[in-house]
């Protein structure tokens, strides 16, 4: 648990001056960048060995052929978050966990308090010794934010022991299932279609809470600590073969649901969540740094990249998700709909909605934006309240929620203001070559390299935006849009206006530190990819062409492209 520290503030201020010095030397603003590109003589050196250190290439004795071509503008950019890039942490497991260095002292204070909240483990109510920390569940997926966002990154992918065919999702799991009733597509949110909100499963809702407090269920004495149902994970394996004969084994998580609470064990197939019209989507935790910057990319800049009908015929469309916005609804906005920005399918409009929905949903901690338990009015909740004396209703006699407004604001601010790690190995020859290949195979068709965040009087999540987020030249490598990634990755469940094959382009900044932060982390929405190569190979649909182009590269070139991605 990292705590509020006056000294940290002082050291931060001293870091700030150092940072300004470094920043001036860096090339993350466009004018300096152009200068640097000139400095590099716009020469791309492709050597047969691909491993010899760069920069003095003209004096190298290696046999090489030189091809003059313009270098991608992002090739030597180090500070991916602009002034909000981390210092002295970008090579280690602390890379996702440092405050933006350009926060004011007061903001840093708030950020560090939010940090403690992020690691707060909630317990069953009533906890007389720690009333401020109770209210967990009664059904939930995990007990604290950090368990699904380990060290502010991705959670561990669950692996199976030899001879084990499946594993029960428990406290180790940073993954859960969303679910809803299949009702076709929903393209234009309106009051008539309930703003394209997903329709929950009767008695369950839109998220399967596989864990519980001790007495969450009627049958708690036989099934202690179980939530709405048990969920088991297993894997289906397949092999991909490159033209050169190299192979990669891919794994795909499969889920089975047992012991649903709504029916007797002998009738489990009658459960509402085991019916044919229920759609599931696994959701893994994701890194939480740099999010405030993404929220301040102007809507116009994102929509300018959309090409819903593929008018340029490049095989890539890209369209926004339009989602219900509870902040707007609370403010009585007549059209409580916003551009979706966060989550695997861009189904939440702001860090605030994403974070506080997770607090209420994933952990069962009610808060002023989401004052009712997710499972309110379900038979499980009614029976739990009756059995435990109505002490854990989600609100007290005064109407206060389990998390206060202040707690909510602080934890949201924390997630808005974590610094983006800087790049590594930017001068490595293979990384430089990979940066060009990244454009060549059109990864940039969706992984849009850069944006400049908005300036002026702005709101994030309904509150005034911190100045530190504004006007930054950032390199997140995402267009913030939805793309059809094919059947292999499809969850076949719509989410607001996103269909069952669409996913939001993931930001790639910091991705190379994923396993430094958590060596057991996996990639993609269900953690199925063990590394970047596997993640690329899962791309299909609109990304099929780019994947094929990647697969057609020589082995050394494929490695270069991965080296570039790992340098981010």
């Amino acid at each position: 648990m990292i705590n509020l520290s006056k000294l940290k503030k002082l050291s931060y201020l001293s870091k700030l001056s150092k940072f300004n010095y470094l920043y001036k030397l860096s090339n993350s603003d466009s004018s300096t960048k152009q200068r640097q590109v000139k400095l590099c003589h716009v020469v791309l050196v492709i050597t047969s060995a691909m491993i010899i250190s760069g920069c003095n290439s003209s004096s190298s004795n290696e046999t090489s052929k030189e091809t003059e071509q313009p270098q991608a503008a992002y090739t030597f950019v180090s500070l991916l978050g602009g002034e909000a890039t981390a210092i002295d942490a970008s090579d280690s497991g602390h890379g996702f966990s440092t405050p933006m260095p350009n926060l004011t002292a007061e903001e840093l204070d708030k950020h560090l308090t939010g940090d403690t909240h992020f690691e707060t483990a909630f317990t069953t109510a009533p906890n007389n010794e720690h009333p401020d920390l109770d209210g967990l569940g009664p059904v939930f997926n995990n007990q604290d934010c950090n368990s699904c966002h380990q060290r502010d990154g991705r959670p561990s992918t669950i692996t199976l022991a030899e001879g084990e065919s499946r594993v029960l999702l428990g406290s180790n799991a940073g993954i859960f299932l969303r679910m809803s009733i299949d009702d076709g597509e929903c393209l234009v949110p309106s009051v008539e279609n309930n703003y394209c909100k997903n329709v929950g499963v009767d008695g369950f809702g839109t998220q399967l809470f596989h864990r519980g407090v001790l007495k969450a269920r009627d049958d708690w004495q036989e099934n202690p600590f179980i939530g709405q149902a048990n969920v088991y994970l297993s894997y289906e394996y397949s092999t991909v073969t490159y033209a050169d004969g190299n192979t990669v084994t891919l794994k795909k998580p499969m889920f089975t649901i047992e012991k649903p609470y709504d029916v007797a064990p002998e009738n489990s197939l009658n459960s509402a969540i085991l019916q044919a019209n229920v759609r599931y989507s696994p959701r893994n935790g994701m890194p939480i740094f740099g999010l405030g910057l993404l929220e301040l990319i102007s809507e116009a800049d994102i929509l300018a990249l959309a090409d819903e009908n593929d008018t340029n015929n490049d095989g890539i469309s890209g369209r926004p998700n339009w989602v219900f916005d509870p902040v707007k609804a609370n403010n009585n906005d007549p059209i409580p709909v916003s551009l979706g920005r966060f989550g695997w399918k861009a189904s939440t409009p702001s860090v605030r909605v994403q974070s506080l929905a997770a607090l209420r949903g994933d952990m069962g901690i009610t808060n002023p934006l989401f004052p009712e338990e997710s499972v309110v009015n379900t038979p499980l909740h009614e029976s739990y309240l009756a059995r435990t004396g109505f002490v854990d209703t989600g609100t007290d006699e005064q109407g206060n929620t389990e998390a206060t407004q202040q707690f909510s604001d602080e934890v949201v601010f924390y997630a808005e203001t974590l610094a983006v790690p800087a790049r590594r190995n930017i001068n490595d020859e293979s990384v430089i070559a990979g940066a060009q290949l990244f454009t060549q195979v059109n990864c940039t068709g969706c992984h849009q390299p850069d944006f400049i965040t908005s300036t002026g009087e702005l709101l994030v999540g309904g509150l005034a935006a911190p100045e530190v987020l504004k006007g930054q030249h950032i390199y997140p490598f995402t267009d913030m849009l939805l793309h059809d990634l094919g059947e292999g990755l499809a969850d076949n469940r719509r989410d607001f206006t996103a269909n069952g094959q669409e996913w939001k382009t993931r930001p790639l900044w910091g991705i190379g530190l994923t396993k430094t932060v958590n060596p057991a982390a996996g990639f993609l929405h269900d953690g199925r990819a063990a590394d970047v190569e596997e993640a690329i190979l899962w791309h299909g649909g609109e990304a099929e062409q780019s994947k094929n182009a990647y697969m057609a590269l020589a082995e050394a070139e494929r490695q270069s492209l991965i080296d570039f991605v790992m340098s981010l």
Partner: protein
Amino acid sequence: MIFKKSLLAAAISALVLTACGGSSSDSETPVVEETSFSFEATEMITNLTNDVIVAGYQNLNDGATDFLLATQNLVNTPTEENLALAQQAWKEVRVPWEQGESHIFGPVDALSIDPHLDTWPLNTSDLEALLASQASFSADELKTFNDDVQGFHTMEFLLFGDGVEDNEKSIDEMTTLESEYLSAAAEVFKTYTQSLLDAWIVANDPNDANSPAYKDLLLTTNNDIYASQLGVVEELINGMIGIVDEVGNGKIAEPFGSNIDNIDTSKVESQYSWNSLADFTDNIRGVQNVYRGEFSGQADKAGIIDFVNAADADLATRVDTEITDAIAAIEAIAGDNDLPFRQAINDADARVRIQAAIDALSTLQTSFENDVLTKLQDWQQ
């Protein structure tokens, strides 16, 4: 690979800087600060990995074995003496765990060992309900329970009582079911300490025998975890900063409050055993282990102090003294009357000593953040 890195080091002039320095004009070339220094880190990283981190986890696992045995003896022969021995074994296994909090990274996180072993606070509501409703407990069953009804603090509560009036529990106050739960929890605990050790020395993914031992990822960098030795050293320094911050600004400052009318005993770490001052001291001893490169009383080996010394000899000594001072200041909190932390926060004289400990930790944290961590930018690998 070393050759490649040295080539790179020669070619690039500053850590964060863009490429092709060799081809740029003098006016464009960033100035190399004269504070740059060389240090060959392999011996230090090898020593800290094997003889501090792994050795510490070995000690933890050995302590867990002794503790499990003590709880089994207590179940089989529930005497006052065996209860006292189990209490003592709990305090002893707590030592390597708390010292290891100076390097919370890798498998301890990835395998969720930290929450399994040390979730705080305890879920007294569920624990008491379990004890009131079940007739027996097994380790296999307990392993499926939530983290907040197992691990150190659950076992502490069962061994020492609620800690409100005292930290003594007589054998008459311990039910058979409580001792059974305690022993099952100790058995689960031992499986986790073994997993942690194995992840470092055998395979970091316990389900994949071909995955590298985590220690090898530190010893041979240029892998998916650590691109270079810079990352390892950065990890170790930031790890020390993390625990110094947590002890000074969290574990001590939060229960201490802004004044004597604003204390919060519910936030005291080991509030049932009254072992908190030992916890805090061991946390900072863990920092000392990493900084010096050896456990207290062992022969001198390479540690972060040697890295700092290569950059600034005075700083290396100053930080070593500040660590020693911080440990002494925490130990001094107990005073002549041996006050536990839980009582000390409510004692005017002791509060002066607590403030002194907070100040000593603050001084140390500032040095680490402003003077030691920043040396990474001057290091020419």
